[in-house]
């Protein structure tokens, strides 16, 4: 697929495709979702970077509606799993059942679960037990599930959009760090403003319901995912990303005092990957062909906030991960020479 882009004359087509699809997705989703610009941009970033997204917000803010609208705008296979405490891993991945083959012999046949879709909505993912949550680990990391020692590939593109409620913690199972790290981005769904709420009420209480028209297919999404990875990035910007990730670790020499005081564990290398890919999407959305420091700063919150583990002192002082990230981004210098050896 990537080889197609190297042919002369096709680059504008790819860029045009990016512009058409990105603008079309936003426009179509906008027909059913009011406001939530950052949420929509974050979901688009996750889609174009093949990264899974965790949506966190109180009930009723339109998380599920957003995912359904996104799936409708993309003409992708969509499935939804409502996570409950009695949900079993086989309910997600699928299982082998005994069925008669055409010759009349009874054999085990794999019945795919809802995970075999392009867009999987894991609604209230923290309500399922850790065992069931772990069933998603392999699917999210390797795009495959293994049942009875047989690995089954998931369709491409594959993206998990999970939702969770930050308030109702009783009867829930907080996602383990390993699974949180599988989510490339965590997006906070905030409460709408007065104007947005008015628009929502007007949109949802009338006798007409807007319909979403598909603007992109699965192959086009794959082409765009490949295009995103071609966005060039300077070494000094990459060095900035590395220093940003290392700066979240309190045991690092260059960590700020704020991080040393409030952070227990820092971000993983996956955070760096998510930062760079999101920065590339932001750069293209901004009409540029290279990643700048501003793109990385813009992606810092959604890529890092669920990967930082704060200590008790931060909890006592009311410090959030967003505050830590904000302070880190503000204090980390960008003008340090990444390639001092080539300075001359």
């Amino acid at each position: 697929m990537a080889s197609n882009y190297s042919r002369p004359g096709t680059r504008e087509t790819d860029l045009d495709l990016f512009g058409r699809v990105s603008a079309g997705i936003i426009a179509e989703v906008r027909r059913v979702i009011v406001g939530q610009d950052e949420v929509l941009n974050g979901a688009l970033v996750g889609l174009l970077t093949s990264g899974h997204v965790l949506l966190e917000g109180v009930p009723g803010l339109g998380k599920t509606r957003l995912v359904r609208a996104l799936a409708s705008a993309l003409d992708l296979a969509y499935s939804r799993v409502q996570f409950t405490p009695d949900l079993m891993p086989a309910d997600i991945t699928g299982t082998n059942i005994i069925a008669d083959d055409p010759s009349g012999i009874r054999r085990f046949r794999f019945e795919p679960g809802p995970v075999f879709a392009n867009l999987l909505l894991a609604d209230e993912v923290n309500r399922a037990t850790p065992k069931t949550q772990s069933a998603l680990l392999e699917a999210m990391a390797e795009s495959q599930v293994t049942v009875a020692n047989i690995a089954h590939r998931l369709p491409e593109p594959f993206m998990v959009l999970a939702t969770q409620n930050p308030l109702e913690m009783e009867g829930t199972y907080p996602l383990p760090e390993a699974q949180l790290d599988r989510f490339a981005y965590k997006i906070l769904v905030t409460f709408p403003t007065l104007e947005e709420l008015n628009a929502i009420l007007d949109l949802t209480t009338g006798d007409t319901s807007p319909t979403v028209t598909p603007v992109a297919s699965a192959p086009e999404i794959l082409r765009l995912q490949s295009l995103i990875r071609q966005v060039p990035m300077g070494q000094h910007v990459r060095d900035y990303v590395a220093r940003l990730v290392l700066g979240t670790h309190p045991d690092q020499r260059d960590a700020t005092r704020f991080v040393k005081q409030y952070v227990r564990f820092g971000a993983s290398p996956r955070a760096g990957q998510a930062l760079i890919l999101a920065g590339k999407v932001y750069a293209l959305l901004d009409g540029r062909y290279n990643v700048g420091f501003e793109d990385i700063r813009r992606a810092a919150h959604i890529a890092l906030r669920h990967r930082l583990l704060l200590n008790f002192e931060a909890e006592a002082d009311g410090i959030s991960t967003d505050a830590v990230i904000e302070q880190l981004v503000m204090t980390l210098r960008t003008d340090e020479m990444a390639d001092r050896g080539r300075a001359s």
Partner: protein
Amino acid sequence: MAQWSMVAVLIGVITARLTANVVIGWMISVGAIIVASIFLGRAVVRRVGPYEIARRTDASLGLHAQLATALELTDASTLGELAELQIQRASRTVLAIIPSASIPLLPRDPVWRRTARANLTATTVSLFAAVLVGVWPSAATNPLEDTEPTLVLADARTPSERPAGEPTPLGQAQALSPGGDAIEARTNRPGDTGTSSSGLIGQREDQALPRSREHQGDASRAAPDAASHATTAAQRGEALQKLGDALRQAQASRAAGESLRRGDTERAADQLNQLADQITRLPPSERETLAEAFKQAGAQTSSGDRQVSEAAKEAAQALSQYKTSDARDAIRREASAVRQAGDANAAERDRDIRAQDLARSGQTSLPERGDSSGEAAGGEQGSASGDQPRDATGQPGQNGQAGQGAQGRDGSVNEGSLSNLEQQLRSGGLDSDGTGSVQGSGAGRGIGSTSPGPATRLDAQSVPVTVQAQEGDGPSTWRPPRPDTPLVAPPPAPAVASGPASNSPVGAGPDINAVPREYTEAVRQYFLPESAPPAGPGAAASGLRP
């Protein structure tokens, strides 16, 4: 590295100054010059590469790392489609750049000037250290040793004799109040009461002078204190205004800043305390703004009110470091400092007003004042001693003849009692209207002595007392019960009156375990229940626990 070297040089300079060692000073001076030369040389020979130029151009022109990325892409062996587009766009950008707007590309200044500017901090610090050490021998002496002591004497002229614009006597009295001896020397004499103002001053001027000279040392010591006292009030007010201006820059502290601007320090202190309570709710950006405001306040008020300045600096530091609890404490200290500064300014303002009122009326006598603390005491004293003749010094007026002190109504004390003025000024003083407390009526009535006598500072005299006593055994060997003393028989208890039990002192007798007789049985039953009679209706009715 350069900054640390400069810090080391500065520490050396300060050490040299403190130890007063000229050799060390010159060594440090030479070292500073060498360090400055080294850094200047390094700056000159340092080369700026194209990548650094590209990055700085991107940063200065806001090009989103466009040029630096394109420069790196030109070194790549294979280029993607987007990379080619990026290079083309960067090339167009470079052509559109105005060289004079791009600082690092083609600067008009020569190299040495650019390098010197780039290393301006290191060069300046080194030269400053060198100059500081160079003037070391002349500055090594203590400037305080050569300072002539300043003698400030009270002006004996009346307000009518004083030219317009000259400070009032009370102003001087206020200024000299820390020492206070000049005022005492010319005013605090018995027999001065009952005379006119001019006569009083004219009569006592020659007498006051020797005593003033006698206390020149005290006055000279008082002069710097008085000066600092006078300047502190103005500086304190200015510091509060600057603090208000700085706090108004942040949204969270704007209300406190407005209150300070209006001079309402009490409200400002309350609002700062509220801010301290809500410090955890501030978003990071607002914290930064608030820290910057406090930092600016700390810098601007350092010459005014040290307490306000230090609290502001601590708050700024704690906020910038996201130390919430420290920031909360520092802001509370700032609120306390603001409140204290406001109270101090109000007290001094009150004193000034009273002094001006007194000077305007031309009195040498002072209305007895009653402030919140002294009002009741003065009034009670006045009423208690209302019929007792007193002279100016407060002595019983047995030897007085002509002291009139007739202004006792409305709380006035004897005329000429400037020593009382001094005391009142020190204690914070006079009422704004100068009328004093009506409870002080009668104080000062009486006849004072007209005979000049030695000045007494305090209105008290010692009286020898003769006690008739005989050495011998005491009437009792009883001691209050202590753990380490053996038990002795207590003295017979006084007969308890047949009144209600509440009349008898509880716990005041010699035996702390003494129980009133009518409660003895109830107490015994309480502590010894096995010997208690069976609970019945009578016990319940008595209200005692079984």
